[in-house]
Every structure is written in structure tokens, then in C-alpha cells.
């Protein structure tokens, strides 16, 4: 018994029929082919499935697809505009904040949610915002630096 839902993903509307127990992460990855969102633990502990739902970061493995009906979803694929990377993506690469890359999509989206709400976060605020995104490779230092540099960049641009 499938349920009809309407998801707006990265600005595009998708009308889908889904079984009620399917998760948003599976619908994004399998039905929409958006594999940028990763599935790490499948149980809401690692954050690699983080997407923005109506602007808020959520673990998409914990969102049932019908719960996302009518919502605006932003995945990592939605950050770049016409091929031009988002400043956060530039910063992550510039600061060496990416190693294997598995946590990066979720991490970047959590950072985006933070900067959207708090454009100049301090280190503590950054660490708190990414607390739900686990990284096994980097030790988080470079990730924090990358996010901080985006905050600083904003401030510099405003001062000019």
C-alpha cells in the first residue's frame, strides 16, 4: 500500500508513491539517484545522512518518507549553483577538511545550517553544531577551521 508524496528536493518537485516504512535517505538515494547523501549507520548516530529539511539539519535515515511530504529538502547536490561550489565546499577543500569524504556531505550541510542561522560562529558553536556528524579520518580540526573560515570570509566581505 503506497502513499503518494510530494518532495521538493534542491528546488525540484518530485511526485512519488512510497511504501509508508521507507526512509527519506533511501528515497533520495534509490528513487531519486541522489547518492551524495550517505548511509553510514542507518540508525541516526553518525550523521552521514544529514540533509536540510525546511532549513533544519535532520538525519534522513530517521525520517520516514511520508514525513517529508510537502517539505523542502536540500541535499549536498543542491549546494553548488550552476556548477559553482558553495563557499563551504571551497573552504573544506582549501583547508584539507576532507579525507575519505564519506562524512563530508552531511558535515557540510550541518555547517550550512549553522551559518544560515549564525553567520559568525565561534569554535564552540561550530563544534556543537557538528556534534552529530562523526568523522573517522580528520579529527575534526580542519573541519572546524574550514567552517570558521567561511564565517570570517563573510565578515571580511561585509567590512569592505
Amino acid at each position, binding site marked *: 500500500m503506497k502513499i503518494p508524496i510530494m518532495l521538493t528536493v534542491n528546488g525540484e518537485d518530485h511526485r512519488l508513491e512510497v511504501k509508508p516504512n521507507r526512509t527519506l535517505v533511501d528515497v533520495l*538515494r534509490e528513487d531519486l*539517484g*541522489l*547518492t*551524495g*547523501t*550517505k*548511509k553510514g549507520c542507518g540508525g541516526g548516530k553518525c550523521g552521514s545522512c544529514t540533509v536540510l529539511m525546511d532549513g533544519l539539519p535532520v538525519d534522513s535515515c530517521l525520517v520516514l518518507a511520508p514525513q517529508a511530504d510537502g517539505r523542502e529538502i536540500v*541535499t*549536498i*547536490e543542491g*549546494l*553548488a549553483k550552476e556548477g559553482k*561550489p558553495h563557499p563551504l*565546499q*571551497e573552504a*573544506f*577543500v*582549501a583547508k*584539507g577538511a*576532507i579525507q*575519505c*569524504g*564519506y562524512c*563530508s*556531505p552531511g558535515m*557540510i550541510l550541518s555547517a550550512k545550517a549553522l551559518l544560515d542561522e549564525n553567520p559568525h560562529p565561534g569554535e564552540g558553536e561550530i563544534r556543537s553544531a557538528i556534534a552529530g556528524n562523526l568523522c573517522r579520518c580528520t579529527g575534526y580540526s580542519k573541519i572546524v577551521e574550514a567552517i570558521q573560515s567561511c564565517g570570517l570570509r563573510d565578515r571580511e566581505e561585509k567590512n569592505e
Partner: protein
Amino acid sequence: MSDLNVVGHSHPQIDGMEKAMGQTQFVSDLVLPNMLHGRILRSPYPHAHIKHIDTSRAETLVGVKAVATYADTPGIRFGPRTEDWTIFARDRARFCGDEIAAVAALDEDTAEEALDLIEVEYEDLPFVTDPIEAMKPGAPLIHEDLPLNSRSRQGMWMRHSRTRTLSMKIVITPTRCTRPIWSRWAHW
């Protein structure tokens, strides 16, 4: 240095932006034509004798293409330092999660169903979960062909200084359980 293009210069990670954009295809992102889906049957017991495995019901489930256990392997032992791993558990499960069997099927649901159809007869064995306890005589042995649960190991560690090379030999015995060996040589 100035006439070198790579050495002495900072270079961005070759695949950094691709990863930042979510474009990198990890294994679980791949979708290939006629792809099968696999699942592993894992031991629920920390230590158990595997008395019998019956895969017949899993093998005959429609959509299942293959079921494998230790019996289907050449039984090669491997491991990074000691060759004490086999790809599937041979006669005993040695931890919760030890691989007992694997299935490949047309879709994930079928593969999961097939796992439930594999019948394994386990005999619970005593287990240890503490390293100090595991080293005591009389502790349940993890490998039947080793007299103790820890290895005597000789390692060669090379420490390079600018003027000379020193080599240091460390012997780790089962009775010693002090600070981690890495702490002294963390800088290299």
C-alpha cells in the same frame, strides 16, 4: 626550490572538490546492471561452537542466487600479523558479529529473508570481554592452537634521526600490560 612545480608547493586534494560536491561514488553508491544484493549472517553469540549449518531453505528461496559458508572456501588463514582469520567462522564464532554465512540475491528484501532461513545450531561457550581476564590462565581460549590469549611478539622499530639510524627491538610479553607502546614513538 623555485624551479620545482610540485615539491615545495601546496596542492589541493585531487578529489577534494568531487567529494565536497557529493559526486564521489563509494561502493554502496554504485548501481550496476543485474547487480545482486548481499547480506552476511552474523553470530549473535560472543563465543559459540558452530555445530551445524543448514542453508537448504535459503538456497531454494526464489531470488537467491548464492549462499556461502566456510565449507565453500579453501579455508585460507590470513591476518595482518598473525594468520588467525578465516573469511567465515570455521567451527566457532569468536565474537558477536562473527561472519557465519553470506547470501546474494536479486534484491535486499530477499537477501534479508534468506538470512532468516539459514539454520545454525550453536553451542554457547564461555567468553571473556576483558583483556586482563583473557590473559589469565584458565581463561577461555580464543584460538585452540595457541596456549594463551595473547601473543609474544618481537617488533623492529626504526627511529630515524638526522645523523644516524637507530633500531630498537621491543618484546611484548603476555605478562606486561603497561602504557601503550605507541606513546613513546608517537612522533613518527
